């Protein structure tokens, strides 16, 4: 039985009894906790949560305090996925042996990881979990950089971003390689549900999270998480920058069901130029010099091509 909440509107959503407490030490204006709250509030079921090493983990579990009113476990950088897969397998085994009564409601198993833990360090483990088909949800909090350790580039960092290990300067425009398309990779595992979400589109996000909870098998969610510290914008602008990201189609919101059926779930009424999205973040400020300005046009072309591809795939249903 599904414990998903019926979310008609924001007022109804706001009656949720929060299971994520304040006084975690995430930066003011951090999108991580907005995403976590939206996910925890989407269901009434008990939850078992794990977190990879990263901002979310170090900031919400400062010994001897915890910000989680759910079961929560942290093991290592790479294995939030396998930790939760183990818990899920144990739950299944104990139920088969009758040591957990059959009328005890099923909890939801959710693993959180940053983009470093997902795109780079934990990739093999996640792939294993998806291959074995555990009934779990993996949420990647994608802020495109190793924010916890001081802003090193990850394989999610996009071209042109200045990170501490790919700094922009007189001889370099910053990161040289394009972002890994993690969603397509996870969809290629044949996962029943894969989706990209953004906290500013909360209704779309709640719907996708609930769909993910209802799906049987491993679910991958890529959550865009604007990072005030490493993207270097003002803490108050987290939602503004998130809006620019979704409306410029740099982060298109779509889902892939059973690895084939692609649906675009948000089509902006007014598509914003990628230039505006880049201009809002000082990590791209060197792109606005004559020397590197050609990169902005390349960005725009890349985003247009990606959007064209998504639309054609949605139409073709393959």
């Amino acid at each position: 039985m599904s414990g998903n909440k019926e979310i008609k509107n924001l007022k109804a959503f706001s009656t949720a009894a929060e299971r994520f407490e304040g006084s975690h030490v995430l930066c003011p204006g951090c999108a991580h906790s907005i995403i976590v709250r939206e996910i925890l509030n989407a269901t009434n079921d008990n939850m078992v949560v794990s977190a990879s090493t990263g901002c979310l983990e170090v900031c919400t579990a400062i010994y001897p305090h915890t910000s989680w009113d759910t079961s929560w476990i942290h093991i290592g950088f790479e294995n939030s996925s396998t930790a939760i897969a183990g818990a899920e397998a144990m739950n299944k085994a104990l139920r088969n042996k009758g040591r957990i009564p059959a009328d005890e409601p099923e909890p939801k198993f959710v693993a959180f990881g940053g983009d470093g833990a997902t795109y780079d360090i934990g990739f093999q483990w996640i792939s294993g979990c998806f291959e074995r088909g555990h009934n779990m949800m993996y949420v990647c909090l994608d802020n495109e950089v190793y924010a916890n350790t001081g802003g090193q580039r990850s394989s999610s960092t996009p071209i042109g971003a200045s990170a501490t290990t790919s700094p922009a300067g007189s001889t370099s425009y910053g990161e040289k390689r394009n972002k890994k398309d993690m969603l397509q990779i996870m969809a290629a595992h044949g996962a029943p549900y894969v989706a990209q979400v953004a906290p500013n589109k909360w209704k779309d996000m709640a719907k996708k999270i609930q769909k993910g909870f209802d799906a049987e098998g491993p679910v991958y969610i890529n959550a865009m998480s604007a990072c005030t510290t490493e993207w270097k914008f003002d803490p108050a602008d987290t939602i503004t920058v998130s809006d620019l990201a979704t409306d410029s189609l740099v982060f298109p919101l779509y889902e892939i069901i059973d690895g084939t059926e692609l649906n675009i779930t948000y089509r902006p009424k007014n598509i914003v130029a990628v230039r505006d999205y880049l201009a809002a973040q000082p990590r791209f400020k060197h792109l606005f010099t004559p020397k590197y300005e050609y990169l902005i046009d390349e960005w725009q072309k890349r985003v247009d091509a990606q959007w064209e591809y998504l639309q054609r795939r949605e139409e073709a249903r393959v």
Partner: protein
Amino acid sequence: MSKSIHDMGWDELVLGAAVHSFKEEIDYNPSQVLPENRDYAETNSKYKYVGDWRVFKPVWNTDLCIHCQFCWLYCPDTSILSREKKMIGFDYDHCKGCGICQEVCPTNPKSIIMFTEQTEEEEALNQWPEKKGSK
């Protein structure tokens, strides 16, 4: 171990540690029980204080608020308190003063405005800006 965890150094802790959110084992699902009715343990971060991170504090104008709940939704610190679809105030122990609530407030003029931490609430309400014209 007899020592309280607060008196221990990091090197005295055993490998693999458990921290409890609630005082005892609970027989209810927290998603069904509002925070004020839960029995929190002292190790819950709820009892920590991060209010001193703040430079600007949000002030709420009840006359202008339409209870749209956008501030509740986007608060990263669970510091907007809402009960029965109405906003009821701020949790200043947990608010870090990021200013997202002011940014997402849709009313004209804003119902939440950031003032410096020292400003008294009454003083802040007295200098509330006028409605911006559409001209």
